[in-house]
């Protein structure tokens, strides 16, 4: 399944192995993790059906634009700690430029289009993140 929104973490090494095809010359992995901005924890929520559809459309666009051979996108939701994985993108392509380009395109489009939100939990309260 190329797009998943899930509470569960994933085995990135296994994703890479499963993505490999003989026609590939490059696999690019993006792993977005929870940064310590003075927070205690971060809570991610999503409109799961809407976000899945939006990300699937982004992936379909990227596959055409960058001639990608494989795409896996896993966006986590739920309460996460500093250092936990938030967004994992694994892209396989014939060449590195296509793989890097496709990965960056998918990442930037998810950040502006997918209905997913972060709420930072601090020692003395919480706040919604709005970009």
């Amino acid at each position, binding site marked *: 399944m190329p797009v998943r929104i899930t509470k569960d973490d994933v085995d990135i090494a296994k994703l890479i192995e499963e993505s490999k095809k003989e026609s590939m010359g490059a696999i690019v992995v993006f792993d977005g993790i929870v940064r310590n901005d003075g927070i205690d924890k971060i809570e991610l929520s999503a409109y799961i059906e809407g976000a899945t559809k939006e990300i699937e459309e982004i992936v379909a666009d990227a596959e055409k634009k960058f001639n990608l051979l494989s795409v896996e996108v896993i966006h986590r939701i739920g309460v996460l700690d500093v250092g936990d994985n938030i967004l994992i993108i694994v892209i396989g392509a014939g060449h590195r430029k296509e793989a890097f380009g496709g990965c960056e395109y998918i990442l930037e489009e998810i950040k502006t289009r997918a209905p997913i*939100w972060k709420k930072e939990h601090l020692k003395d309260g919480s706040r919604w993140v709005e970009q």
Partner: protein
Amino acid sequence: MKIKIKFFARFTEIFGKEAIFEYEAGETNSLKDAVGAFCRSYPEKYGEVFTRDGEFQDYVLIMHNLERIDRDDAGAVKLADGDEIAIYPPVAGG
């Protein structure tokens, strides 16, 4: 006619996660009218989603049956029984 309105992120703290809004067909004709009628039942918080002129605030994002709708087009989107509308603030995923 019954529609489902879902709210997300900070809007859930005002309107709850989702509401079934029931009204007479023809009473409110468009997506904007229906969401406006629902939000007017929260007079102190109406301004979180709509301007005084009854337009969606420029940060509000909308999906209609999982399709993104431009807020400027919301007055022209006709609803059908069972439709699902999502109203949410700017996204922050990734």
